[in-house]
């Protein structure tokens, strides 16, 4: 199964990029509505990456970030991570609920954690519902879990699921320009999910 991931060609990756693009488009629109201001997203980067490279994307394995983690259950299981710089997460929740935070710049109050969980719910829910429309498969996210810590430590929980030394990563960068908010939305399909995903899209694996 892991070999299937390693051997994905440019065409297969571009199909995933397009799927990710549509999913992320829905997610960005939902988040924009929630915040009442425009959130932009970049065209997703789809790649097959090693463990170390994943945390490099957010600034290295020791980078202090906030991670929202959800498992995807159903026909195409996988993991979803939304990683934000701590300052970005602070600004995002302040936009959403006002200043109800902890006085410490790198600590989050219960209210702020709930707000971040809600953001995770909305992003993952809209992303997955567009993916489900596309594939006619059932998928649902678990309630989001939150950790504020080193990126490598946070991401490892998704990597242990993979059973391989590399992962198929759909990485979408969200940017809210004026407030300088930057986040990465990662979708990591479980190894067995990749062939189901392609089959449902009518794309041959090789």
């Amino acid at each position: 199964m892991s070999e299937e991931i390693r051997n994905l060609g440019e065409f297969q990756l571009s199909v995933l990029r397009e799927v990710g693009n549509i999913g992320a488009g829905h997610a960005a629109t939902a988040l924009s509505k929630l915040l009442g201001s425009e959130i932009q997203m970049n065209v997703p980067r789809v790649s097959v990456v090693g463990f170390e490279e994943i945390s490099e994307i957010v600034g290295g394995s020791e980078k202090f970030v906030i991670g929202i983690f959800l498992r995807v259950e159903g026909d195409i299981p996988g993991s979803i991570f939304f990683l934000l710089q701590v300052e970005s997460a602070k600004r995002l929740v302040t936009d959403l609920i006002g200043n109800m935070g902890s006085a410490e710049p790198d600590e989050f109050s219960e209210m702020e954690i709930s707000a971040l969980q809600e953001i995770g719910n909305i992003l993952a829910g809209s992303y997955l519902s567009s993916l489900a429309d596309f594939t006619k498969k059932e998928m649902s996210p678990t309630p989001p879990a939150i950790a504020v810590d080193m990126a490598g430590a946070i991401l490892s929980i998704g990597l242990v699921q993979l059973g391989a030394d590399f992962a198929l990563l759909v990485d979408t960068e969200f940017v809210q320009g004026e407030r300088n908010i930057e986040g990465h939305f990662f979708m990591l399909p479980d190894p067995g999910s990749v062939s189901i995903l392609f089959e449902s899209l009518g794309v041959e694996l090789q």
Partner: protein
Amino acid sequence: MTVIRVGMADLNVADGEDSLRTTGLGSCVGIALYDSQTKVTGLAHIMLPTSANANETNRAKYANTAVPLLIEMMEKKGANRRRLSAKLAGGAQMFTFAGQSDLMRIGPRNVEAVKEALRLNTIPVVAEDTGGNCGRTIELFSADGSLVIRTAKQGVSTL
């Protein structure tokens, strides 16, 4: 004085004035072995308790395969397995709120598996900083076998 980097699901050995460093341990466990006489050290960053697949190519990824491999490599560098002692760090539960109890308990399970692998090789665990819910970066110094642990929230400590 070289700092040798050990990646995720990776291991390496050092001696003399060199040190071994691995970053961002979450549910993973860092296994630090030390031979006080030859100053040979070995560090593994394991991700899972046991290899389900007997043909597993990356032995550094699993507790039960990484420990014997690390000992072999240290012996090649001159260590004696009867003198080895172990220090452990990691095995945290990074996320406390979620449904997948099995997945969430991977940290403690990793720690148990490492201890079992060490027991099978009769290597005593002399110190550990395991469990909890914080990420750790660790550095093992060959000069004295000390293990320096950095966390994002609780500062630095030395085992």
